[in-house]
Structures are given as structure tokens and as C-alpha cells.
């Protein structure tokens, strides 16, 4: 696994500060000495590529969002990099800046479904930039804005110096994605967030696309739970309910070691073996989703193990 090309996906709504953030992070070398940047723009006339320079070069994919219409171009670009890499010329890390209209979950899905990329690319982290000034309005009205938040491994609040009410926004983000840590940046520079005070999340009205709010549920796996039984249950659950189960995350103890389990909708990342530690959070799985009664998850699992 060590020599896979590491891919970081940087998503976020239109104008959320993705390029600004990437520009500064590349300037300070946060992605290593040979990072290659892929910039995707939904519009035909690109702007962002002019702003970015990277040690490993910049690829521009314009005229099609890479989670849908431009997906073939993205796959081709990544395959090209993998090709170069297998000849010893490619980068070890890639930063993909998506268009503001992209659903990062769909991109992860496309990469995992590609027979070449699955062997060569590891999705390191899905970062989503959140515009602290405008996110509140986007989240109450835009299904896409919510999907982006839900798919994130880490949320980056941008423009925090100009934002009036961070506490409510942070509470709202936690409702949508309880597991992703929230960091903050101003013009790309990381800044510390003030301590969070308790605030009510913004009301998230049901949008035409989605009928119920997304809720997190924690399941404690029974002692001695067998990995093969648990994954059989989970694979059936994801097949039947994958569109409702936005995210499943947790660490499971198995004979092979501590396995980090992560899914985005129907896509499961290849489980990663974590180093041993006496961590108390093992065998607790977080389910984030909608459209089911949370109490039924442990009941159904018990039926499968019984």
C-alpha cells in the first residue's frame, strides 16, 4: 500500500475559497515536494489554473464537472499520472481541486470503480472548504452544499475573519457531518478557531431531493463480533440502503489487527490496518444517514449474528 499515489480531494461550494486555500498550502509546501495539482472547472473558461503553481505541475480540466460530465477526463488524467509514476517520473501526491459543483463522494466512487486506479491511487483525505460567510444560506437551500459537507473527512472554514456567527454554523456542520474535524483558514493560512460555545444549529428544511434529516447513530459491536459476519451484514445494508447511509465510520478489531472502516454512500474504502493502541473507541461504528429507525440497526445486526 505504501507506494500508492496519494490523492487529496479538495471540494467545496462555488466561491468557498478552495483555490485560495490550495494556493497558500502549496506555497508553504503542505503537500510535499513533488505534488501535482489537478484543477477542475465546470466552466469552459478557466481561471483557477492561472493562480496555482505546483512543484509537480498543474493539469487543467475545464468544461465539465469531474463528478459527472467531466469524469472521463479526470480518470484519464489520473491514469496518465499513474503511467508516468510507474516509469519513475510521476508525483507521489496529487491534489485535486474540484469544481464548486462537484460531489466529492461521486469522485471517490468513480476512482474506486476504475480497474486501473484502484491499484494505483489511495484517496488520502476529502477536504471540503466551507465559506463561513455564505454557507448558512447554501446549506438551508442547496442539496449539493449539504452533500459536499456530508462527504468530507475534514471541513475547512474559510473567511472566518469576516464571518459574523461561527458557533451556529459549526453546530450546523456537526449535524450534517458529526465526525469530520473542523479547522479554519483565512486567505489559506490556518488559524485557530475560538472555543466553541453552545449554539443551536440552523434549521435545515427538507429539500425536494431529501426527505428526512441526516442523523448519526453509534453502534457498539457486541464483544467477540466476527468481522466476516459484521461485514456481510454491512455489505447487504449498504447495497439496500447505500443512498441513505451517507457515511459509516469506525475501527473494528479483527485477527488481522485494528481495521479502519470508512464508507461514503455505497463505496467502501479498502480497510486500513491501524497501529495498536489502547484506544477506547474500538468496535464502535458511527452510522450517519436518514430514512431508517436508528434503533433497528443493532436489532438487525443481532439477528444476523444470532
Amino acid at each position, binding site marked *: 500500500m505504501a507506494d500508492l499515489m496519494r490523492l487529496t480531494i479538495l471540494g467545496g461550494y462555488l466561491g468557498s475559497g478552495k483555490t485560495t486555500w490550495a494556493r497558500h498550502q502549496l506555497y508553504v509546501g503542505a503537500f510535499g515536494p513533488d505534488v501535482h495539482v489537478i484543477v477542475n472547472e465546470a466552466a469552459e473558461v478557466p481561471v483557477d489554473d492561472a493562480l496555482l503553481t505546483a512543484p509537480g505541475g498543474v493539469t487543467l480540466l475545464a468544461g465539465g464537472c469531474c463528478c459527472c460530465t467531466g469524469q472521463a477526463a479526470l480518470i484519464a488524467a489520473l491514469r496518465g499520472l499513474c503511467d508516468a509514476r510507474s516509469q519513475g517520473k510521476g508525483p507521489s501526491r496529487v491534489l485535486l481541486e474540484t469544481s464548486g459543483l462537484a460531489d466529492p463522494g461521486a469522485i471517490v466512487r468513480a476512482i474506486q470503480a476504475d480497474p486501473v486506479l484502484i491499484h494505483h491511487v489511495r484517496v488520502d483525505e476529502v477536504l471540503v472548504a466551507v465559506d463561513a460567510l455564505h454557507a448558512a444560506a447554501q446549506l438551508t437551500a442547496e442539496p449539493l452544499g449539504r452533500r459536499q459537507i456530508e462527504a468530507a473527512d475534514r471541513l475547512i472554514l474559510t473567511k472566518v475573519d469576516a464571518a459574523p456567527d461561527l458557533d451556529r454554523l459549526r453546530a450546523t456542520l456537526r449535524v450534517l457531518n458529526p465526525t469530520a474535524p473542523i479547522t479554519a483558514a483565512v486567505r489559506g493560512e490556518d488559524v485557530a478557531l475560538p472555543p466553541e460555545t453552545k449554539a443551536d444549529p440552523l434549521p435545515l428544511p427538507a429539500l425536494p431531493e431529501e426527505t428526512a434529516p441526516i442523523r448519526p447513530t453509534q453502534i457498539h459491536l457486541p464483544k467477540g463480533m*466476527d468481522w*466476516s*459476519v459484521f461485514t456481510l451484514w454491512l455489505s*447487504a445494508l449498504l447495497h*439496500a440502503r447505500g443512498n441513505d447511509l451517507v457515511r459509516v465510520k469506525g475501527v473494528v478489531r479483527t485477527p488481522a489487527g485494528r481495521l479502519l472502516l470508512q464508507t461514503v454512500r455505497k463505496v467502501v474504502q479498502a480497510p486500513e490496518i491501524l497501529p495498536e493502541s489502547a484506544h477506547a473507541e474500538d468496535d464502535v461504528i458511527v452510522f450517519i444517514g436518514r430514512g431508517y429507525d436508528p434503533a433497528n440497526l443493532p436489532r438487525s445486526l443481532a439477528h444476523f449474528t444470532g
Partner: protein
Amino acid sequence: MCNACGNPAVPGHWTEAGAASPGDRLRARYQRTALLNRLLRPYGLSVADGGAVPGYQLSTLSGAVTLVNDLGALWEEAERLIGRPVDPLDARYLNG
């Protein structure tokens, strides 16, 4: 990858990650097959993991057999045969 059938197209299905030794792997295969048969029998389906053939063999009562590569493909094929997905949150799976 096998030149004749193209299997496996991807390195190991995620459900197979938890086994450390060949013994664990074999045990897990038996366990999965037994559980799958218990779950799918009410639908008139049975599952065999022949060992020589990769993946699972999913059979109907009339004897039609489909080879599927992994559990993900198995649930898809089961949905096609049954007409709806096997949903663990269905009422039939919620009682003890």
C-alpha cells in the same frame, strides 16, 4: 488477474480484510456461506463457495447458477432474482 475470466479485477473485496492467516480466511468463508444460506433460503436461493471457482455460486431452486465475484455483486444478483434488495432493516430481520 486471470486472462480467461478477468478475475479478480480489484485486489480483495473489503469484506475479506479481517483475516490474518489462511486458516482465518477459510473459516471466514465457511461462516459467510452458512450465514448467506440462512438469510437467502426464504427467498429460494442458495449459496456455495466451491473453493476451486473464485467468488460465490448463487443458485435458484430451478437450478440456475450465477457466479459472482464478491458480496457486493452477490447482493446485486440477489436483488435481480428477488425483484427487490435484501434489506437488513426489513421487518423480517428485526426480531432477535
